[in-house]
């Protein structure tokens, strides 16, 4: 396997993990904040370095230079390929933006150390292709939100039950899938089908597919908004499905997942429209979009898969920014109710603009990063399911209504009277400008992104075929 020029992946994983320990030892939160920001910036630079370095090779996969983990375990633990290459910098960017936009007054409720720990685990998960390790890391990632909810004296039963089920299904599922000597899963036996089914259920549960989505709304209700946002926005459930389920699942199973995801997309979009709490509103909006990503991923056509990979990035950026805006407004106003008008436009026009822009970006409005991805997903869905595929359009339409509705509720109405300035701080303005540039830049010049994602989609489909061919061949030999 080709080597990168530097151990970017190991840096990206170890820096936040070591940083978490260091920040945890610091007593003064105000002093820890700038250091946490620096750590996030350096992690982002490493993640970007890894992406750029990988792009220069024009290959499907590569691993770190001086791969220490490979030396110890004699196998590639962290691998970068076309699927995860842009997802790692995206995750690092989201964490940086979140830390950067955290008000000092909120540092008591938002754990910087825990955030860095989660960042390290997330980047490790996204860098990893080994199923056992992915399951272990994703299980570990469930701990910080659980601890936070406990420390806030909130009921953790809904979250614990769902995450416990997720861990159980993942572990038993992968254990049931028989592997040959080379480690390639065999999908011909009934055990494999059971295992595959359990893994699929685990992936869907983690992605919040209806009817096992309630843990997500519960998490947004009870954990800090930033923690919940960072836990769900990178879409690790979809990543798990791509890495573990896609190579072993038969096409009919994947297309069934696509239909379930399509139903979730429409259901969640409808639910977003009747919510009166901004966090739950965001959660359903996100659920609808992440389900659309799953729809495209499971279509298994180059166009559908390209669309899904494009939307994955655009949803991460757009809804990450959207959530960040709601969080910034919440930090100033408290929990936002959507049953009344807040009249905040004059106080925070920058946030109002970002709210609208990120919201429109997420629904694939022309000129934003999601536009071409949404076109591709609709095209792909209609190609496979001519009538049902139009539900993607319905979900997008409902999401569009929901976004403008929430915008009006939060930013319009009788002007809010405030005794202090509610304007965006320079750090927040920096976050706003960065996200705006990425959302509009990606929308105006979509070709590089689409080409890269199309190449990834093609390779993923090709790799899936390579993995399934030996199994077929094996069966034919047995018959003879």
């Amino acid at each position, binding site marked *: 396997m080709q080597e990168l020029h530097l151990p970017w992946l190991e840096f990206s994983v170890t820096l936040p993990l070591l940083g978490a320990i260091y920040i945890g030892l610091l007593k003064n939160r105000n002093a820890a904040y700038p250091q946490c920001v620096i750590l996030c910036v350096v992690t982002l630079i490493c993640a970007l370095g890894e992406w750029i370095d990988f792009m220069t090779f024009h290959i499907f996969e590569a691993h770190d230079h001086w791969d220490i983990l490979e030396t110890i375990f004699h196998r590639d633990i962290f691998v970068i390929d076309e699927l995860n290459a842009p997802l790692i910098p995206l995750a690092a960017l989201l964490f940086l933006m979140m830390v950067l936009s955290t008000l000092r007054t909120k540092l008591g409720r938002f754990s910087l150390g825990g955030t860095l720990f989660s960042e390290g685990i997330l980047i490790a998960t996204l860098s990893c292709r080994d199923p056992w390790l992915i399951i272990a890391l994703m299980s570990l990632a469930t701990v910080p939100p659980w601890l936070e909810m406990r420390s806030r004296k*909130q*009921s953790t*039963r*809904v979250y614990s*039950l769902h995450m416990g089920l997720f861990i159980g299904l993942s572990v038993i599922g992968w254990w049931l899938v028989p592997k040959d000597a080379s480690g390639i899963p065999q999908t011909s036996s009934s055990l494999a089908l059971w295992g595959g089914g359990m893994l699929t259920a685990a992936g869907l549960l983690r992605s919040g597919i209806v009817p096992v989505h*309630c843990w997500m*709304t*519960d998490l947004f*209700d*009870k954990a800090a908004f930033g923690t919940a946002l960072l836990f769900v926005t990178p879409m690790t459930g979809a990543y798990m499905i791509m890495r573990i389920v896609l190579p072993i699942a038969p096409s009919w199973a994947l297309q069934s997942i696509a239909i379930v995801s399509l139903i979730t997309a429409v259901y969640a979009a*409808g*639910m977003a*429209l*009747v*919510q*009166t*709490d901004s*966090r739950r509103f965001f959660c359903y909006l996100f659920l609808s979009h992440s389900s659309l990503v799953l729809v495209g991923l499971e279509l298994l056509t*180059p*166009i559908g898969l390209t669309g899904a990979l494009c939307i994955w990035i655009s949803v991460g950026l757009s809804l990450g920014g959207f959530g960040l805006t709601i969080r910034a407004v919440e930090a100033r106003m408290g*929990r936002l*109710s*959507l049953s*009344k*008008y807040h*009249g905040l436009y*004059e106080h925070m026009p*920058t946030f109002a*603009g970002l709210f609208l822009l990120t919201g*429109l970006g997420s629904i694939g*409005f*022309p*000129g934003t990063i999601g536009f*071409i991805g949404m*076109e591709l997903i*609709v*095209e792909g869905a*209609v*190609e496979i399911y001519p009538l049902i595929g*139009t539900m993607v*359009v319905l979900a*997008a*339409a*409902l999401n*569009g*209504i929901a976004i*403008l*509705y929430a915008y*009006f509720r939060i*930013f*319009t*109405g009788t*002007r809010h009277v405030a005794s202090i300035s509610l304007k965006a701080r320079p750090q927040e303005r920096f976050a*706003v*400008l960065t996200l*705006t540039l990425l959302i509009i830049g990606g929308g105006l010049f979509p*070709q590089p992104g*689409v*080409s890269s994602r*199309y190449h990834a989609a093609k390779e993923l489909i090709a790799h899936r075929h390579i993995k399934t061919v030996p199994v077929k061949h094996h069966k034919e030999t047995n018959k003879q």
Partner: protein
Amino acid sequence: MDLNTLFHALSVIVLVMPALLLTVLGVTALLNRHLSETLMARWTEVTVTVALLAAVSILGIMLFSGQRYVSVELGNWVVIHEQHFHFHLRFIFDRLSVPFVILTFVLVGTIGAFANRYLHREPGYGRFFLFYAVFLLGMVIASLAGTIETLFIGWELVGLSSALLVAYFHERPSPVVNGVRVWAIYRIADAAFLVAAVALHHLTGAGDFSGLMGTEPWPNGTASLTEIQALFVGLLLLIAAAGKSGMVPFSGWLPRAMEGPTPSSAVFYGALSVHLGAYLLLRVSPLLDASMTLRICVIALGLTSAVFGALAARVQTDIKSALAFASLSQVGIIVVEIGFGLRYIALIHIIGHACLRTLQLLRAPTMLHDYHTLENALGENLPQQKSMIRNLIPEPIQKRIYRFALERGHLDAFLDTFFVRPFIKVFTLCDGWEKKWTDYLSNNGPSRDQNAEEQTVAKTDSMEDIK
């Protein structure tokens, strides 16, 4: 410089100027560097005038050279060769698009100059001109689009700016409620448009209008679809057009849109935006030739909208609503003309109607003053003439028609009863079930944050404002 290069240069000017205006206004707003009113007005004047001159030059050269159809290729915005997927940026200048784009620049320029005075020192002056720039860009793209996907981009930009301008006076709830309503209708229309675009892609292999209607210049194209295909795509586009132009059953948004400031009402809902649906039907008019059923549907929809608009306009008590329904009546007639294949008549009708309605809407705020001037000049009240038709219709039927018109055809009530309320009811019910389920999982304790629950305890329909 040969003719093609000249066309290309002029067309780029036509397209770039609105984009430049939007960029300047958008970037300065984003960076919190607010431009002065004078500077904004100057920018608007310069960009609109230069683009108008370029568009008029194109018309002049086309008339002089006898060219009826000029296609400007800006290349592929996105292309995946292996999958034959391409998002082609192609703009066409023909007998339909050139008059429409010139009309757009003339009316938008006039409104810009008017709004500069009308909104002087308004807190939302900058916001108005930002949305105005979005609208202008959307109209220009939609007018000149050579592919259905490009038209969709313009279509969406027009929709967004319209909804935001309806809610321009956002400190009052009513404009905001109406803004959401307009946006909701637009999104439904956009969904129909998008499905039509995808269907067209699948049926013809591309979204180019030339692929759909052949290379003959408008209006002589011939649809390359079968009757059933033309009917399917055509009906979807008809829904999109009905939503955008406020035709039956979506007419309810038209008077609501008058909540916006007068300049935007005049140019958007009285003149340009309201005709965009008719423009779409004109652009794809060869489809109508391919399906008689589609043609009958278009005529029926136009006729219904025209009659409804005429009835509703007569009983309105405020001038802007009366003008909105009068516009609907004319749009209905234009759609009937398109259905009958009178394409040039329809285009001329659009241009004439748009100019007249803009003038009427701009004069609307001073109408009482105008009436007083007239009455002072006459020395008596203006004469009230009874309609001849009223004598022919029995009194009870007259009353029924009056109530029907006064209730605006119960169209909003129809949409609310059969679509909005059931939708809210179903999802509110699901929300309740989810709460019970999470309460149960939480060991019968409260599963939702108590503080949040207290804040959102008002369990009224969160969509009540869309009613």
